[in-house]
């Protein structure tokens, strides 16, 4: 094998696939990346052999095709520190020792037999959907944070994709909050309901940052895998099996108070209150007071036992009764950070009923968060 590629390309590719490598594994080869050189390009692959696989293609000058695995961490760290020049990789016939050279640096890295690398299964075409990358990315951003990181109910560690007509609904819930995003499609999708692990979607969201154009989703016939084809990169995720909770019933149909606020202002006040709420386990209290003459106001306050308290106030357009509700500051911050509209509406009914947040002028997103029962 004889390959020459740009340092920047290899670095970018290694960083992208390294995200699939498990932190701990009993299978040493999963700590390696697979390096396959064919005409005009190199395909980098990494997988945890269970839930996720990422492949990334970079352009390269391949004078002699070949394949080898190399320890991901060592290779990535080495490449990252090299200058922006071309890197030459050579592997002698029947050898496992890769020689690398770049500028006046040379290195030798021991690899493993590429045939031992866990196979990345091809995802056969049972259903195929195209979505614009930036829209998919927003849908992921607005849902994936609400998924549980671990739970007795594994389905909650995933994001539910419900495909019907010309729409995909993404939903995630961790037992205390629910995020739902509606994504309209240009073409009819085959009706389908799957749960994609939130971790895999998080990695996909990262990869999508550098993609313009469309992403193709392909599901396999067995309903066990999904492939996201980004063009130069692909991510294959194992689907979670199980039934996702019926979340429509969890979104309150009617609420008594609608409080419209500027997202940045509320985020700032929540951030300040959270500093004080740290000792009090994150309790942030919201008190909305309507006004008949001018704009109403929303008070945001928190107190730390025996340390101090904080009270902030912002303008709010309040439609309905006075509202009091306490949220975990972190939950509030999480949702405010992913709303990309200037203004948002908080819908509430009582201190013990769920709060609903929606961006103003964008009905693709809704978030439901449970308040806390606290002493007022």
């Amino acid at each position, binding site marked *: 094998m004889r390959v020459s590629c740009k340092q920047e390309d290899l670095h970018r590719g290694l960083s992208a696939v390294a995200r699939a490598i498990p932190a701990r594994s009993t299978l040493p080869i999963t700590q390696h990346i697979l390096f396959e050189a064919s005409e005009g390009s190199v395909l980098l692959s990494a997988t945890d052999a269970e839930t996720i696989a990422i492949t990334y293609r970079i352009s390269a000058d391949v004078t002699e095709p070949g394949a080898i695995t190399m320890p991901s961490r060592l290779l990535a760290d080495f490449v990252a520190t090299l200058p922006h020049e071309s890197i030459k990789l050579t592997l002698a016939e029947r050898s496992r020792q890769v020689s690398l050279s770049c500028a006046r640096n040379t290195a030798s890295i021991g690899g493993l037999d590429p045939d031992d690398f866990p196979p990345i299964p091809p995802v056969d075409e049972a259903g195929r959907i195209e979505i614009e990358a930036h829209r998919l990315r927003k849908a992921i951003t607005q849902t994936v944070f609400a998924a*549980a990181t671990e739970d007795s109910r594994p389905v909650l560690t995933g994001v539910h994709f419900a495909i019907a007509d010309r729409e995909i609904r993404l939903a995630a819930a961790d037992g205390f909050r629910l995020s739902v995003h509606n994504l309209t499609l240009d073409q009819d999708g085959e009706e389908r309901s799957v749960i994609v692990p939130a971790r895999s979607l998080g990695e996909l969201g990262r990869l999508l940052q550098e993609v313009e154009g469309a992403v193709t989703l392909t599901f396999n016939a067995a309903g066990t895998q999904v492939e996201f084809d980004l063009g130069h990169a692909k991510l294959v995720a194992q689907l979670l099996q199980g039934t996702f909770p019926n979340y429509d019933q*969890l979104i309150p149909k009617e609420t008594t108070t609608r409080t419209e606020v500027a997202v940045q202002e509320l985020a700032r006040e929540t951030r300040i209150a959270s500093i004080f709420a740290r000792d009090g386990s994150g309790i942030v209290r919201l008190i909305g007071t309507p006004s008949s003459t001018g704009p109403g106001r929303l008070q945001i306050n928190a107190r730390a036992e025996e340390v101090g308290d904080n009270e902030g106030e912002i303008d709010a357009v309040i439609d309905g009764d006075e509202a009091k509700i306490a949220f975990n500051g972190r939950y509030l911050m999480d949702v405010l950070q992913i709303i990309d509209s200037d203004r948002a509406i908080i819908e509430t009914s009582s201190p013990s009923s769920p709060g609903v947040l929606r961006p103003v002028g964008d009905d693709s997103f809704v978030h439901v968060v*449970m308040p806390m*029962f606290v*002493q007022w």
Partner: protein
Amino acid sequence: MVTAPDSRIAVLPPAIAAQIAAGEVIGRPANVAKELLENAIDARATRIEVLIENGGIDRIRVRDDGIGIPSDQITDAFERHATSKLRQAEDLASLTTLGFRGEALASIAAVSEVDITTRTQDDEAAVEAKVHDGQVRRVRAAAAAPGTTVDVRQLFVSFPARLRFLRTAKSETQAIAQVIIDSALAYPMVAFRFESDGRELLSAPGGGDLRDAVQAVHSREVAQELLTLSLDERLPHHPVSDLKVDVGEDDRDSPDHDSDITHSSELVPMIRIDGLIGPASLHRGNRRYMHLIVNGRPIKSPALLVAIEQGYRGLIAAGRHPVAILEITLPGEQVDINIHPAKTELRFRNERFVFAVVRRAVLAVLAASPTIPTPNADWLGLNELRQTTKPSASKSTSGRHILEAVQGASHPTPELNQNFDSETFALSLREGLPALRLLGQIGGTYLIGEAPDGFYLIDQHAAHERILYERIEAQRDATAANGYSQPLLEPVLIELSPAKATLASALSEDFVSVGWSFESIDGNAVILRAVPQTLHGDSIRRGRAFDAERTFRDQLDVVESDDRITGPDRVAASLACHAAVRAGDVLATSEQKALLAALENAKTPQNCPHGRPTVLHINAKALARAFGRT
């Protein structure tokens, strides 16, 4: 078949009646000692000597320097119900003397042979009498200093049945020692000396300082460590008629609730609590180090001991007991001592109030001086140094606990933490933990922090447990019925084993009080609706997943196996224990800092709710000594 008993009823001869009655008062040698000690104290003695032989069975001699008995009354003194302490029935309500029944001498004389020598200040000479079978046999003049000496011999010699019931001489000696300990602590102004079979077991100097008495009874180390407690409080409102001192006719239950009505100050009945209590780091394996004195009388009150222990709640491990000597003073009509002839039990008119005041007083003192143990000097190899620099702390017999001396034990009672011998090395910090500069984590288990006075090792699990426990308690106090809780988006059905389901439903109120919300449904399942806010908030803050079902199951497991704490605190403590970081959890620096900061703010940072220490202090001075820098 046994011969039919003579069925005629006959009035018993006085001597037999006296012997039967004596049994109520005098059951063992310690009772003799107690009655004689009380007489001596009532006689305003400043010095009392007790000498016993063979556990008091052969001989008990009590000598005092009190007022003595006038020579013409010596015969009367041995009559039943003869007393100088009570004149009329009304006096019973406001007794200030220890004795009043007038039974002591008569009862003792009924079961033993008594020699008495007594002289008043005014008499020229002493008078000596021999009492045999309850009769004063011989009275004659003798030479002696003012005061009274009662020498009791041949106790129960004519009562073989009772003699058989006595325990070994050693345990009878212990019982007598306990009586003397109680008296020495109740009357620190009186000098006591106690001698058993020629060996001095206790010598209290008198002089009025309770600490001196404690040193004589327990040890110098204990005495030095004790914290002073002093509290005055108004008794709760009573109907005005109650405020008269002679309230004999009014025995309505006093209302427990406080009232806004104020009384003119001279009429307001007060309760006063004085004494010494040990810091939380000083604890013992039994309750013998807790002493109660009510209106000058040593008494036993399991309820008040519980009140004291509640003050140490969460500071001392279960099964360990604090050291405390409390003297409670309240108007005579507030207590009834005349419940039992031995007069060791009493009844408070308003026990709940007294209980609450005692608990509050203990809490207040402890809160003002949290203590943090420092490791035993041996840990730093300082033991030898200490011995050379600090010559023998205490050499008197009082260096060892008197009861241990009695038992001839050569080792002190094993303590929970011998390595952390807080008796000698505890450090009292008025302000709790100082601000600590984090140095890092050791073995994924301990945090290490530095302050000007040395460094501190913190058990991360115990510390976090304490922090969470206080938060749970704070939220519980604030809401009374329901702890702060974080409801679930959707209720979760949790199937449980029959045992767990029963436990959950039995403790449901305690669970609710810390913030859980669930209902038991048919069969063995619960529907979980909300989780404790403290736990949820703490997990979220630390960026950890919060799994409601698993947490609930774990909590049930912990509660089921945690029998170290009982009552409503059990759920709170096990909740804190479950949620706290574990030993072995590697913590990010920011998390370590947060933990230290929270511990600094804790009310009682020094112990976890189960009583284990959270913090060890390595004194800068000890460190310097260990390195030979001083």
